């Protein structure tokens, strides 16, 4: 546990920020990102604390900090410095102190409407301009005012500031929902969570022009950091759950299936039921659930099958490990079986001893401190493990896909010849150049994939859009794969840049759940065909090793490339495209679009 993991101590972070930073910087594996922080009020300490939370997520920021309350001017009339900085992210720190046209009781209803339009238009103009820099934009909505002229009626009266703020926030939400590459940092919710009287400090405003209390800066910065790490594909993907006293009250092996606390009959049962409902909802976001419990499997499953009050059913879990093996072994096995990194797992267990063993044996697994069932939801929710920025149709279907994968694994074991197995899957696919319709999913795939990823180069959506528009200098390809068990969606994409008669593979990623299904061959066949169309004679490629992409270290050799450079940090390859090229994929029926 880091001092920056939820639940953190704000005062400690603020006081010790220098030594915390020093310690974080001892880690040497960071991805570097440029972040412009623009000011609607004082931002000095916000930047410093944001840096800590980002470092804690493995992101090393290079900041450009705007001048005090100059966000509007710096965006609208950039002197070239913002453009030159080429930010990956722009965070605009505005608050209700930046609303210029607040309603007053003397206003007519028409005048209030005008003010609302004016404020929204200004907000929108700023956002559009920020997006034009090609960065991911993060903006705040507006927190509630600290006093109300009308009392409760402030939320109802046309001239009420609460009413005005609510309306403005809805307009902002609708606008952001309609755009890509821009995310809301919901300070209206956050300030509510903390309490307005705590969130805002008149002293800090008058003295230092901080639009929030200085000691609440860690909460704000944490919120922004969560959005950034999510946009960079650093979310957790799966939860591993203990059963006894975690998903229900009591010990099923001792108390019997009727003896465990679940259902809304008594308070303890209610807390576990609500937790299960929460987890069930998480699966709707594509988060995968697994069980890891010291139990007899048959008895453990009765907790779901024989207690109808349990919101979860056995089918909601991808892996169900109820046995007497040490938990860290089971958890490592789960990561292998569903083919995700251990660092994508969150482990929930009421037993502190089990948590400690897992933390020690599997240091990359996230193990929140949870003390009692009424805290479980909070521990997951506030920590933002699954903070959503983009959400695609494939995400919604992910659980289904992984379950189908389990069926495929079962089918595979029935075949002795791998080729026969592949043929039995009755695979069809779709392949074509990047298109606007698939842009969001493609960007997400590029930024999330770590294993089948030769260069681990990340692309912002705007960069993907450039590639879509430029068919002369780039060959791009995405592919979908469907088999008899279901639709895997878009699972691979490739970008090659063409220079003269050479095409260089800048990026090639594939979701690991379809690796070795020969979709990689189909993609390569497509690349070769495109090269031939464009008169390209040679293909070059590189492999940049990371901790996660070892599985593809010999891939290019396997499909006929020659190694031209083999160093610790990079392998380079070349392939002369033969006159007569025979397609490598013989098992998937591909449709070219």
């Amino acid at each position: 546990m880091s001092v920056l993991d939820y639940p953190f101590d704000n005062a400690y972070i603020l006081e010790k920020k220098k030594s915390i930073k020093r310690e974080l910087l001892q880690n040497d594996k960071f991805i570097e990102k440029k972040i412009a922080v623009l000011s609607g009020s004082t931002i000095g300490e916000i930047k410093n604390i944001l840096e800590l939370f980002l470092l804690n997520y493995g992101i090393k920021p290079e900041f450009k900090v705007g001048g005090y309350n100059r966000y509007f001017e710096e965006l609208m009339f950039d002197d070239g410095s913002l453009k030159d900085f080429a930010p990956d992210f722009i965070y605009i720190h505005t608050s209700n102190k930046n609303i210029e046209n607040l309603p007053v009781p003397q206003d007519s209803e028409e005048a209030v409407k005008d003010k609302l339009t004016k404020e929204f238009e200004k907000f929108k103009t700023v956002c559009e301009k920020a997006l034009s820099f090609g960065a991911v934009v993060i903006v705040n909505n507006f927190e509630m005012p600290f006093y109300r002229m009308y009392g409760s009626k402030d939320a109802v009266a046309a001239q009420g500031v609460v009413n005005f703020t609510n309306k403005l926030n809805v307009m902002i939400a609708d606008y952001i929902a309609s755009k890509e590459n821009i995310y809301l940092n919901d300070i209206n919710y956050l300030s509510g969570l903390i309490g307005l009287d705590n969130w805002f400090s008149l002293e800090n405003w008058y003295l230092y022009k901080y639009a929030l209390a200085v000691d609440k800066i860690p909460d704000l910065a944490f919120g922004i950091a969560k959005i950034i790490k999510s946009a960079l594909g650093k979310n957790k993907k799966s939860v591993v759950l203990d059963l006894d006293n975690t998903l229900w009250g009591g010990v099923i092996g001792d108390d019997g299936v009727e003896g465990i606390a679940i259902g809304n009959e008594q308070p303890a049962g209610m807390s576990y039921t609500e937790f299960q409902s929460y987890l069930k909802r998480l699966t709707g976001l594509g988060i995968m659930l697994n069980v890891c419990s010291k139990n007899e499997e048959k008895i453990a499953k009765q907790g779901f099958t024989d207690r109808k009050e349990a919101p979860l059913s056995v089918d909601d879990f991808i892996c169900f490990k109820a046995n007497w093996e040490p938990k860290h072994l089971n958890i490592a096995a789960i990561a292998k079986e569903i083919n995700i990194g251990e660092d994508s797992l969150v482990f929930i267990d009421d037993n502190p001893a089990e948590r400690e063993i897992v933390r020690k044996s599997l240091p990359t697994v996230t193990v929140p401190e949870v003390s009692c069932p009424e805290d479980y939801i909070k521990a997951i929710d506030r920590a933002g493990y699954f903070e959503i920025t983009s959400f695609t149709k494939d995400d919604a279907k992910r659980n289904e896909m992984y379950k189908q994968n389990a069926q495929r694994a079962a089918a595979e074991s029935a075949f002795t010849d791998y080729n026969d197995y592949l043929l039995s899957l009755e695979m069809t696919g779709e392949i074509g150049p990047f298109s606007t319709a698939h842009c969001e999913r493609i960007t997400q795939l590029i930024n999330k994939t770590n294993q089948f990823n030769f260069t681990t180069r990340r692309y912002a959506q705007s960069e993907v859009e450039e590639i879509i528009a430029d068919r002369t200098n780039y060959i791009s390809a995405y592919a979908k794969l469907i088999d008899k068990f279901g639709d895997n969606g878009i699972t691979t994409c490739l970008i090659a840049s063409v220079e003269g008669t050479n095409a260089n593979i800048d990026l090639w990623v594939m979701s690991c759940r379809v690796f070795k299904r020969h979709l990689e061959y189909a993609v390569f066949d497509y690349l070769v065909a495109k090269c031939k169309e464009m008169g390209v004679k040679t293909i070059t490629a590189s492999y940049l090793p990371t901790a996660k992409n070892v599985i593809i270290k010999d891939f290019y050799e396997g499909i006929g490339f020659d190694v031209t450079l083999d160093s610790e940090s990079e392998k380079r390859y070349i392939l002369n495209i033969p006159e007569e090229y025979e397609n490598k994929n013989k098992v998937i029926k591909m449709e070219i679009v």
Partner: protein
Amino acid sequence: MTREDIFARLTDIFRNVFDDDEIVLTDSTTADDIEDWDSLEQINLLVAIEKRFNIKFQLADVSHLENVGAMVDLVARLIA
């Protein structure tokens, strides 16, 4: 709490905020004596002092704190 106690706690805060265990405070220590002590860190110091002593500064309190001695006096007055 004696003036010495307040000094000891302030020293701890200063050492944390500036990440420097060598800092020694006297009544006459000012921002000129500590390299990183700028307006941003001044805010940090005040917030940390409020938390540590569980006190709340008023606007008028913090406008003219010319040295550490003045800070100690202010804390002594508020916890009295």
